[in-house]
C-alpha cells in the first residue's frame, strides 16, 4: 500500500473479480496487484534500461469493454520487416492486472508484417502499453485505454 489512491484501485479490482468468480472470491490475495511502477519494472526486465521512444507502435482497443475477461487488442509496429530492418520483439503490459506482463511476442524479418491480434484480461479500466524492440536495438512505445464497465448482476 503506497498511496491512498492505490487503496481505491484495490477495492475496485476486488470487485471486478468478485463479479467474475462469485461471492467466494472476496478473499483475494492483496499482493496480487500491479501498478504503473510494476509495468515500468516489467518493461525494464524484458527490454533493459534503454530509453522508450514514443511512436511507431500502435495499440488498438475498444473504448468500452462490457467484461474485462476478454478484450480484443491489436498491436502493430511500423517497420519495413526486411532482413536488416525488422521488429525483434513486441510485448504487452497492463498497469492494473495482478501481473504487469501480459505477453511477449518474438518476430523476425520473415513475419512480413509486425501486427498481432489477441484477447486479453483487463482487471479494470486502464491504459494498456506496448513496447517494440527493433533490429537496431531501439525501443518504441505506444498505448491505448479501455473503460471496463461493471456488469448488472454480480453473480455471473
Amino acid at each position, binding site marked *: 500500500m503506497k498511496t491512498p489512491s492505490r487503496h481505491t484501485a484495490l477495492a*475496485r479490482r476486488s470487485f471486478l473479480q468478485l463479479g467474475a468468480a462469485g461471492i467466494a472470491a472476496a478473499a483475494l490475495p492483496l499482493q496480487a496487484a500491479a501498478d504503473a511502477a510494476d509495468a515500468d519494472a516489467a518493461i525494464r526486465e524484458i527490454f533493459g534500461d534503454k530509453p522508450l521512444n514514443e511512436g511507431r507502435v500502435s495499440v488498438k482497443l475498444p473504448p468500452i*469493454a462490457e467484461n474485462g475477461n476478454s478484450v480484443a487488442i491489436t498491436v502493430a509496429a511500423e517497420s519495413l520487416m526486411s532482413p536488416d530492418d525488422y521488429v525483434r520483439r513486441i510485448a504487452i503490459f497492463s498497469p492494473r492486472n495482478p501481473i504487469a506482463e501480459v505477453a511477449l511476442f518474438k518476430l523476425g524479418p520473415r513475419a512480413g508484417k509486425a501486427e498481432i491480434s489477441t484477447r486479453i484480461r483487463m482487471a479494470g479500466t486502464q491504459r494498456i502499453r506496448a513496447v517494440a524492440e527493433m533490429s537496431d536495438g531501439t525501443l518504441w512505445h505506444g498505448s491505448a485505454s479501455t473503460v471496463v*464497465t*461493471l*456488469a448488472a448482476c*454480480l453473480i455471473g
Partner: protein
Amino acid sequence: MKAGLALLSAFCLTACGDVVADTKSPPAQPQPLQSGYEFLQPQTQALQDDDFANPGFLWIDRGEALFSTATASGSACSECHTDASLPLAGAAAHYPKIDAESGDLINLEGRINLCRTRHQNEAAFEYESDELLSLTAYVAYLSRGTPISVDIEGAAADWYARGRDYFETRRGQFNLSCTQCHDDNWGKKLRGDTISQGHGTGFPAYRLEWQSLGSLHRRLRDCDAGVRAEPRPYGSDDYLAVELYLAKRAEGLEIETPGVRR
C-alpha cells in the same frame, strides 16, 4: 465487503425503483422482440459474428466430432441422423417439447441423453459436462437461423403455465421476478449494462463472464443467484418449464447458437 454492500444497495435502488408488485396481470411481453445480441457492445457482437474467432465454435467442433464418432455400443448419432433420414436441421427450434414415449417435457439436452439411453445403449451425459454441452451446441447450431416455434398445447400447456408462473414470481433476497427486469424494464440501464429482454436464443452460449460455453440452465441459475434466490438444479422441472415459457415468448426470433454474451 463494504464495497459489496454498497453495490447490493445500488442494484436495488436502480432495479427496484419503479416496479409494480402485481404479478396477476397479463404478461407485458417485450415488443418488438429483440435478441440479447442487440443489447451487447459492438465488439461483443463482432465476436459472435466471426465464425472463426467465436469461441463457441470450439465446442461445436467437438460436438460435430462426437456426433459422428461411434460410441462403445457401436453406433454414432450420424448413422441415424443424415440429410435424408431424421435430419436435424431446424429441429432445435421446436424444443422444449413433449417426448411422446414418456409424456415428459424435454429440452435438447434431454433429447440427446434419451438418444443415448434408448438407441445407443449408453449412459446419459452429466448436465453441463463438456460432452453434453458440445453435442447440444452442435445440434442447436444445425438450426442456426431457424425461427423458434414451440408447441404449448396439450400436455405442454401445464408446463408453459408453470414456466410463466416461475418467470413472474418474485423471489430471492432482492424480491425480484424475471418479468420486472426483462418485461417491464428492458432497454434501461442497470449499472454498465443495458437490460435485455431475456431471450435464450443464443444458448448454449459463450459468456465472457464464464469464459466458457454454458447452457441456458446455467444462465438461469445465474439469474436466480443474481437476485439472491436459491438456484434450481440443472435439468430441473422448474427450469424446463421456464425454458418452454421463454421459447414461446421468443417465438419468431432465430436460433443464434453459438451466441456470445457478456
